[in-house]
């Protein structure tokens, strides 16, 4: 049975509070926090980027799963902020963990669902017996134009998943829903993305997540009550709560995986880091529904059942990791992001 054999996550240590950003732009911090459901977001240090985050997450996944990295037959890194437009991030990871040279590697892009797209590819390769292990990573150092609403939520972080057979969490099924819906985009060469404001809601986020989730549950013959946990893509602290409610999930199901209020939107890392936090506390037999969303637009939905093997797995403990933090002011934040040269 194709399965998650290991996982690891990394979120940079630095944080900037909503108040700090609001002060600069003359916004009301309380309005932002209550409107977007966010209090602070992660900030990458000057020498951190998608590659370093992906490598760190990958290293943790390898260490915890204790597999031989040379047996990883595929590595895919999904991101909106690959360091290069041409030159893969995935081979940097492969080299760093010792998976080279006999492997297939490529980078993915599909806004925030690039990581889960890579995960689906690994599932296929493992199921087809073409590889023993595959690794899919979703990682980002998200960019937002200063002063744009996205600045409050665009954060940094990532998670790596090793797919194989007989792991800690079986992947029962995956299904996707994709349409050409340009709610959020960044043209080649542009530093910051643009978005359609309210168009990113109902016709994008909600439409794709609900359709993917409903089709998944229809195929699996399940209802929301059948799941112990539900994890959704988290562009802010409000959308995932609303979509959970729309689908019929309760707070007890989604609260463990909801990290955006305290780390922001890690874009390609978003759902995967939330899933990691969920696996951190999951027990054998727990059933998880996990649905990503990428602008442009599409959702990948996964039906997962935790196995007995999770009891002996050294958990990442995402919530403990992100509790170690250091606050920076706006100027330092700008310096770290490379805006002040």
């Amino acid at each position, binding site marked *: 049975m194709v399965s998650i054999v290991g996982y690891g996550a990394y979120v940079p240590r630095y944080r900037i509070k909503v108040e700090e950003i609001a002060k600069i732009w003359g916004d*009301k911090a309380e*309005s932002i926090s209550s409107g977007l459901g966010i209090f602070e977001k992660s900030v990458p240090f000057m020498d951190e980027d998608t590659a370093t985050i992906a490598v760190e997450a990958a290293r943790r996944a390898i260490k915890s799963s204790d597999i031989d990295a040379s047996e990883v037959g595929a590595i895919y890194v999904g991101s909106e902020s690959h360091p290069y437009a041409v030159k893969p991030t995935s081979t940097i990871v492969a080299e760093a963990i010792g998976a080279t040279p006999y492997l297939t590697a490529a980078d993915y892009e599909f806004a925030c669902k690039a990581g889960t797209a890579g995960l689906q590819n690994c599932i296929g390769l493992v199921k087809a017996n073409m590889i023993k292990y595959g690794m899919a990573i979703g990682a980002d150092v998200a960019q937002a134009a200063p002063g744009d609403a996205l600045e409050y939520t665009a954060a940094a972080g990532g998670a790596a998943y090793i797919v194989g057979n007989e792991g800690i969490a079986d992947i029962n099924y995956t299904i996707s829903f994709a349409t050409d819906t340009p709610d959020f985009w960044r043209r080649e060469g542009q530093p910051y993305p643009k978005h*359609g*404001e*309210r*168009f990113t809601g*109902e*016709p994008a986020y909600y439409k794709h997540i609900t359709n993917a989730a409903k089709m998944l549950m229809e195929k699996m013959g399940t209802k929301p009550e059948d799941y112990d946990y539900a994890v959704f893509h988290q562009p802010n602290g409000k959308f995932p709560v609303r979509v959970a409610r729309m689908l019929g999930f309760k707070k007890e199901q989604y609260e463990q995986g909801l990290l955006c209020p305290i780390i922001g939107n890690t874009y390609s890392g978003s759902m995967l880091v939330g899933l990691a936090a969920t696996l951190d506390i999951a027990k054998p037999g727990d059933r998880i529904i996990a649905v990503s969303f990428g602008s442009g637009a599409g959702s990948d939905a996964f039906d997962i059942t935790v196995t007995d093997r999770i009891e002996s797995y050294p958990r990442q403990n995402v919530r403990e990791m992100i509790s170690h933090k250091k606050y920076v002011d706006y100027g330092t934040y700008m310096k770290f992001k490379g805006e002040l040269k």
Partner: protein
Amino acid sequence: MREVAVIGVGMTKFGEIWDKSFRDLVAEAGMKAIMDAGIEGKDIDAMYIGGMSSGGFVEQEHVAPLAIEVAGLEEFHIPATRVEGACASGGIAVRHGYMAVASGIHDIVIVGGAEKMTDVVGTEATNVLASAADREWEAFFGMTFPGLYALMARYHMHKYGTTPEQLASVAVKNHYNGSMNPNAQYKRRITVDDVLSSPMVADPLHLLDCSPITDGAAAIVLAPLDIAKEYTDKIVKFRASAQASDTISLFNRSRFDALPVTIHAGERAFKQAGLTPKDIDLVEVHDCFTIAEIMAIEDLGFFKKGEGGKATEEGLTAIDGELPVNTSGGLKSKGHPVGATGVAQVIEVTLQLRGEAGERQVKDARIGMTHNVGGSGGTAVVNILEGI
């Protein structure tokens, strides 16, 4: 001059209609009105379509032949005209349709209004809407629409003691009415507290004091009264259709606590109809902002100047009050697809006079009025309709 009747009405839902384009909305409203009238395309003699800025919102001008095309009416080559008067575009279109039939020049005329506002982001929509004000001397200097009406609200509060709670009570009433309107954009009931704690847009106007950005279209079919009974038993006829103009700019206006366009259009309408405010059973006014409704019910002569706020707060303009105002939910709750509004107001009054307003029905409604304003008060159209 012949008498004119409304023999058909049709509208789309109002709201953020992501999956319908400008032409989809036009086609839907037009088709519904034609079907309600029980006519065929070939019966239509002329078409008027009101729209504030299809150019600004969807980069499309020349929308009259577009409407003809989506309606499949091109083979009849009827005169088709797009009418613009900012937020009064729909009302002006109605008056032109009325004049065409009343004069005897055309028999069956279809009048529509449409606006597709959600294909641009918020800042662009605000900029397009600002073109209803004086671009060079108001908009360029940073004035937006909420800003213009906020100035009037501030003055009204200063001169007459109108309170933020009274402003809020307009929105509360309209949301209550809108909650019973299946076509309304916002069907959520709100409280005065909800309004006052919503973000400030332009002091003293909060978010919930302001009408929203909306997609929608509405259409009516007009016919000479003497043949109306061939199409409907529930005949609604025009008693009046009046229009007035004033400065586009607020700063050159003769007064800031009222809209002279409303006063003049209203007086003309009552004169044409041979009626007084006491004869009106319900009125749809142009509540682009809560203060606009308060001034409108004063300027139309229903309440003394300065007492509109108190009247609303005391429930006099509720559906079961002595003068129901905006039973549809008004622009605030029903939504404000700019060019469609003036036509949608006529539809609400027509439905009321036909007894087809469902939960919103005003008992024994016989005479209704509509009030549609362009910009901060550059244009106003007032219609009076009677159910016979």
